[in-house]
């Protein structure tokens, strides 16, 4: 299970048989190491110096609040799907620390290239629950974020978004804008050539882009150990000649600090970096999946011991920044916020057939005008108006 730091492969493991060359007289030409960072341990005790932002109690509470909101919203989405009111939905249960940590580390003018699970980052950056509900309810309007207008939309074709982030970073470099792009990618996604092309390109051009690998242990039914023989996913960075680091993805403070450092360096011209956040997919892959077919219960149970909410709450309580009353209020507040968003969502009308044609091109070519008319004719018949 990749989420437990102790389970990382021993350093410098030598397989039973290897090419004999390690015995012959050779010269070292390059050396690399991959490091791991944790700031809060699973019980919420600091095990490394706290970063500067942690001195701001409001900021810490803001992060925790967002984690709670995400968890409640996520549960609601799963529920809506189960009751036939939403399409297939990929739960982010267990990813809250990573997603909120990344969101908090980014600046508004930076550009996010998400995959499909990063509710926490999106919410932090201003995408609304209503927009997310629309998208997962099968409506493109959900991608028309009222803000941030410049962020990429959800991205289903795995790994493709990493190249968009690199491209946006290229634009910032050419246009001399002090902005960064940040692309998410899953553990499974790191097997796609596009991911490697993106980090390699970013390295070659020293682009201001940070790649966050969310290693949640699984790509649908395929465990990380079947994706790659690499001991860590952070070391993928070495192939691109750029820095790579592991962070405890259930530790919101460590994630935020690590991502912020990488973004800061990138913004100052140091080039890209890869950050592997070790967390765990506590849910099925999506609502269409049944993880019990391929994943042991024991593993799941252990992963729950490391989940990110408790850790943050314990840390806040112990620091006297949080109490049971506040927790109760927060839970209620978030639940209401989610209910309101859902209620408003259901008040929206379905898109009309014109929506298929409206944004295909800046100006609709002639033959599509005919097709639009056909669509209107039959749409009218279908819905009866």
């Amino acid at each position: 299970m990749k989420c437990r730091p102790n389970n990382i492969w021993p350093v410098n493991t030598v397989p039973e048989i290897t090419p004999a060359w390690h015995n012959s007289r050779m010269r070292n030409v390059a050396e690399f190491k991959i490091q791991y960072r944790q700031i809060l341990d699973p019980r919420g005790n600091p095990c490394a110096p706290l970063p500067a932002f942690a001195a701001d109690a409001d900021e810490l509470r803001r992060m925790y609040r967002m984690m709670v909101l995400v968890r409640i919203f996520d549960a609601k989405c799963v529920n809506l799907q189960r009751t036939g009111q939403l399409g297939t939905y990929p739960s982010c249960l267990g990813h809250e620390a990573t997603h909120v940590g990344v969101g908090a580390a980014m600046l508004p003018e930076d550009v996010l290239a998400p995959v499909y699970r990063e509710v926490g980052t999106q919410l932090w950056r201003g995408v609304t629950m209503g927009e997310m509900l629309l998208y997962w309810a099968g409506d493109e309007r959900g991608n028309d974020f009222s803000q941030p207008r410049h962020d990429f939309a959800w991205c289903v074709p795995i790994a493709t978004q990493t190249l968009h982030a690199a491209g946006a970073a290229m634009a910032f470099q050419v246009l001399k804008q002090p902005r960064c792009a940040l692309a998410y990618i899953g553990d499974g996604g790191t097997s796609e050539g596009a991911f490697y092309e993106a980090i390699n390109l970013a390295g070659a051009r020293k682009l201001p882009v940070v790649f966050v690998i969310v290693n949640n242990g699984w790509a649908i039914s395929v465990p990380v150990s079947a994706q790659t023989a690499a001991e860590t996913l952070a070391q993928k960075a070495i192939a691109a000649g750029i820095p790579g680091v592991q962070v405890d993805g259930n530790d919101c403070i460590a994630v935020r600090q690590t991502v912020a450092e990488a973004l800061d360096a990138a913004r100052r011209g140091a080039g890209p970096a890869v950050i592997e956040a070790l967390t765990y997919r506590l849910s099925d892959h999506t609502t269409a999946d049944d993880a019990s077919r391929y994943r042991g219960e024991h593993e799941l149970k252990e992963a729950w011991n490391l989940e990110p909410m408790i850790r943050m709450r314990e840390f806040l309580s112990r620091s006297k920044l949080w109490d049971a009353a506040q927790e109760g209020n927060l839970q209620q507040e978030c639940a209401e916020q989610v209910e309101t968003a859902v209620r408003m969502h259901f008040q929206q009308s379905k898109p009309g057939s014109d929506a298929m044609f409206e944004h295909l091109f800046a100006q609709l070519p002639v033959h599509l005008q005919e097709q639009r008319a056909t669509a209107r004719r039959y749409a009218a018949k279908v819905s009866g108006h």
Partner: protein
Amino acid sequence: MAKITMIEAIAMAHGWEMQHDPRVVVIGQDVGANGGVFRATAGLQQRFGKDRVQDTPLAEAAIAGMSVGMATHGLKPVAEIQFMGFLYPALDQIVNHMSRMRNRTRGRLTCPVVMRMPHGGGIHAPEHHSESTESMLCHIPGIRVVCPSSPARAYGLLLAAIRDPDPVMFLEPVRLYRAVRQEVADDGQALPLDACCILREGSDATIVTWGAMTIETLRAAAELEKRGVSVEVIDLCTLSPIDIETILESIAKTGRLVIVHEAARNVGVGAEIAALVAEHGLFDLQAPIRRVTGFDTVVPLFQLEQEYIPSTQRIIDTVQLTLTEGA
């Protein structure tokens, strides 16, 4: 004999052929313990072991490229692409190698590969999960493209595809995976490739279609019959190469052709059928050839997919329009 769904028929065909041909190896994302996201390979890893049913890393170019190497060196890979919308990274290997390995080595190395993939929309799936871009595949010389429309045809055509000594793209309409049950004998009988299949005989007009659109087309034909119009329905089955003879014979009889497909119209497979008929059957035609297809738009997210997929009504109206035209 139990009645089974198309997805079960597909798993059954895998099982038969793996049992009888030790060279057959199944690869893809989540095809192992999970048995495929649609369950097309359910139970195969338990039955044939991890060597013969292998989960691959998440990399479509790799799936196609390794299939090439496996096929040239003694295996018969049956590879699953999780959805047709994720086929594109694999196209390079299909166009530049799989399709031409035999030709470019003068028969020295060959590629008996089947690439299976869910095809089309209609099941409220997420973005990029409803593609039907078969026409891009059909344009590639050196491969076959096959699309079944029932459990029995899925079983027989998949066996034929696996046994074929050349690459076959096998498109599985997701709307049909669990739409109907049918008695299918697990007898290892393959169906012929490169041949259409007449689903319904008729005399007033011919409709050519394939895959999931056979549903709306057969419904339209049934409705038209009530109105006194006799429609012949042809299931293309093999989309490339096209069995044009069967289509031309039908048109010689009916004089009218409507083509129905879910994919976008522009340079779709329907265009090729129309072009062949406009060359070889022009003088049999009594009316313009009409196509009822998906629009030349991006497949919309699922709120609008019913507006995108050609409806029974559109097919009925188009056939009737055709009947009013010409001689």
